[in-house]
């Protein structure tokens, strides 16, 4: 009786074991959770007008394809734009907004804006609890003369916001880790 019981148990164990091992389901796919596939800056002229968008979209994340950079139209000279950023992870569906994460940990994040050829200047509009800039909301003021150059938007994680010049938007001493960096070629006319 006992032998029978043991045999049965062994048999059961074998069935369970082989069922487990032969049942090798395909592994589940992983969609990168923290990838920022899309950065969109929407620039609306103060006092009204058409919104200009600057977008960097890289749907394969760290894959070989380079981000697709689009600038909807040239910027006007001598104009101030109210700007806001939207960050998305479009590998998930529906697309996940990364803005919330940054807002929740705004003391650990800061955007930096730079323009080559002095085509524009930038001012922060949003601040963390310590009164340091974050940069999801900002203004862009274009130069008085027509020309062209690059606008670079950089997001740093855990920068030293207290370091010299950082709260004024100077990236030089910011340190931290780059989470996003996009370069937009723009024309002023």
């Amino acid at each position: 009786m006992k032998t029978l019981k043991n045999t049965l148990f062994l048999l059961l164990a074998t069935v369970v074991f082989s069922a487990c091992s032969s049942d090798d389901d395909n592994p589940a796919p992983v969609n990168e959770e923290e990838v920022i596939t899309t950065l969109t800056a929407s620039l609306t002229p103060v006092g009204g007008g058409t919104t200009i968008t600057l977008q960097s979209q890289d749907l394969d994340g760290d894959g070989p394809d380079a981000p697709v950079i689009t600038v909807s139209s040239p910027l006007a000279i001598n104009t101030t734009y109210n700007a806001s950023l939207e960050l998305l992870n479009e590998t998930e569906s529906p697309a996940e907004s990364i803005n919330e994460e940054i807002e929740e940990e705004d003391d650990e994040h800061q955007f930096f804006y730079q323009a080559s050829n002095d085509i524009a200047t930038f001012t922060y509009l949003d601040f963390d609890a310590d009164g340091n800039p974050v940069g999801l909301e900002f203004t862009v003021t274009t130069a008085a003369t027509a020309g062209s150059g690059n606008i670079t938007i950089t997001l740093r994680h855990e920068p030293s916001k207290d370091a010299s010049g950082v709260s004024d938007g100077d990236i030089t001493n910011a340190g931290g880790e780059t989470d996003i960096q996009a370069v937009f070629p723009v024309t002023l006319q």
Partner: protein
Amino acid sequence: MKYYVMMLCFLFFNITQSQNCNSSFYGEIHDFHDGTPIINATIFIENLNQYTTSDIDGKFSVPNLCDGQITIVVSHLACETKRLDIQVKGETFLIINLEHHIEELNEVEVTGSINPKLTKTSQETLLKTETIERYSSLNLGDALKQVSGVSSINTGSTIVKPVINGLHSSRIIVMTNGVRLQDQDWGIEHAPNIDLNTAGSITVLKGANALAYGGDAIGGVIVMEPSKIKLKDSLYGKTIISGHTNGRGYSFNTSLTKTYQKGWYVGAQASMKRFGDFEAPDYSLTNTGLNAKGFSINGGYKTFEQGFNVNYSFLDNETAILKSAHIGNIEDLVNAINSPEPLVIEDFSYDINAPKQEVTHQILKASFYKRFKNFGRLEVQYDFQNNQRYEYDIRVGDDENKPSIDLTLKTHTLKTNLKLDANSNFTYNLGINAGYQNNFANPSTGVRRLIPDYDKYDFGAFIISNYRINNDVHLDFGIRYDYNQIDAKKYYLTSRWEERGYDVDFNDIVIEDLGTQLLTNPNFEYHNISASAGVSYKINDTNSFIFNYGLSNRAPNPSELFSDGLHHSAARIELGDLRMEQETSNRVSGSYNYKNKALSLNLEAFYNHISDYIFIEPTGVEYTNRGAFPVWSYNQTNAALYGLDLTANYNFNTQWFFKNKSSYIKGNDLSQNEDLIDIPSIKTVNILGYSNEKWLHFNTELQSELVFRQNDYPNNNFEVYIPTIEETVEVDISTTPPTYHLLHLQSNITLDVSKKTDVNIGLNITNIFNTNYRENLNRLRYFADDLGRNIMLQLKLNY
């Protein structure tokens, strides 16, 4: 009542027995291995205090004995002494087998005895318990650097991978207590998961000649053996406590073993290590602490003829990685290289924050052996290993406390080994092994898998023979076959799949198309042949030579095949290649050994030609939303490594000695005609030592370590546009750090507390002058200086 009856019976029986004293005991004494008679062995009858010896045919006789039990002790020069209880009744005949290979059993006290060599004709170096204990609170890699020709490749000071003659990771086999360590050794930041304190001795074998351990050890084999069990009724143990100024570290290791003369033994060992942030001479290295815990239990039965061993070990290592080394993109790397100090320097703390890794390794082993007279020794072993690896990056939001890498590697190995040593002039060692390995990459990390899920099957068979021509000449031949199969399920980004050209070459392995990702089923087989041949020749008592040749093949590891993605800590995209073939090494080496009363010298030379050598090199730049990243791809080339290792020791008198350990190595990429990357620098260590038994067994050593700048390196620098400074800059990842010289002091005294207890107090100072330096083979050299001065106090109790 019953009791008295029994007593009476017993008495009566005894009386009758003692009355017959005309019995005799006679027999023959044979060598266990080949059955030849042993002449002149002593047979001592303990309870009669009577001696006799065996004659030319190994025969002996003891006449005029009374029936009953006698205890005899049989001994012979260079043989194991045997103690037997014998029932004499009338004419009692017995064949007694003596074992003359006494070193294999090590019944004798180990102190002062010479550990046997694992091979006769390989370049091997032994580290003894004493040396290992000195590194009790450090790593395997640190201890092995005591061997000339062994260096290390580090990630900081706590992740240390041994490098043998320029080769590391999958090209080195680490054996611990008979088990081949399976712990995802392919990664440079994956140090061997070994508690140094479990080893009683460590042997380093250079090259692939020790085929019994595996056929793919192109670099060499590290064999860690537990302390030998002494077969006597005894309870012994030791405790080591140490404290460090640098990192404010402390460590504790203790072990206790109970042995019985009959052969049973049981032992346990436990250790812990805790370090906070280490310090470079000028600043704190923020987030570099360590928290390690381990224990092992060991038990079994051991006699000359048979025995078994069951062993379980557990190790948990939580290691912080320098915070400044966590970088986002190539611009951060440029900033880090250009900054003279790390970008994050905080006050000392024991905290271990991300980036960090936590690895748990468990080994369960059971082995059994039996010796057959006139034949040899058969051993069967099963082991199971479970390696759980978590790596944490700096993450945000809900993912903050989630690992980026979560891999579980399970390995089962069954092996059997037969050693035929009936004829001590011709010994054979043959074995087979079979293994199954499963890797599971947990998808809940929310990060694409670095290493895919896979099943791996291994099978190997080998035969090694050793011929002793005479006492001075030994010949070794060996051949081994290995079969490896890897069956993986891996997701590729569709864009990557096409960029690699896999859509043309590997279209048939796609099993599911998810649009942006493809599920594929790479299933590869490799057949590997290895061979070795060696000769050792002892010219006279002072001069001896060893020459050997080794052929070995190594199948590509999962990282070389499947790597695909961004490596955060290196700020680079690493790509494996499914087309990878196995690499083949042909290595020739020679050693010269000189020894006289005062001077001993060992010179080892090698030339290792590796065809289809797998290495990683920069192949371009890719752009993502984080910015630009250099792409490093695994490639194959033909390579040659060659070098010279020297160990010399000169005793001025019984108290003063001088020692030199130097190594020189070069690595060439023969196809591209340039230098190989990550080749150890030329290094020379000079030691002046003094010891005096009368001063509480005082020993001291002053060590000078001189490491030259590596001038031979490939130029992997690349140019990249940095938007924030609007400039294209050259990223200098190649230029090697300058020559450095460090001075260390080691000293210790031993106090004899009682006959069985002694206390050893050691004081070690490393980097006495707090010198600033960076080591080429430390991957964190771009970010921070290496360690400053450390003073360590160590207390060692033997009881």
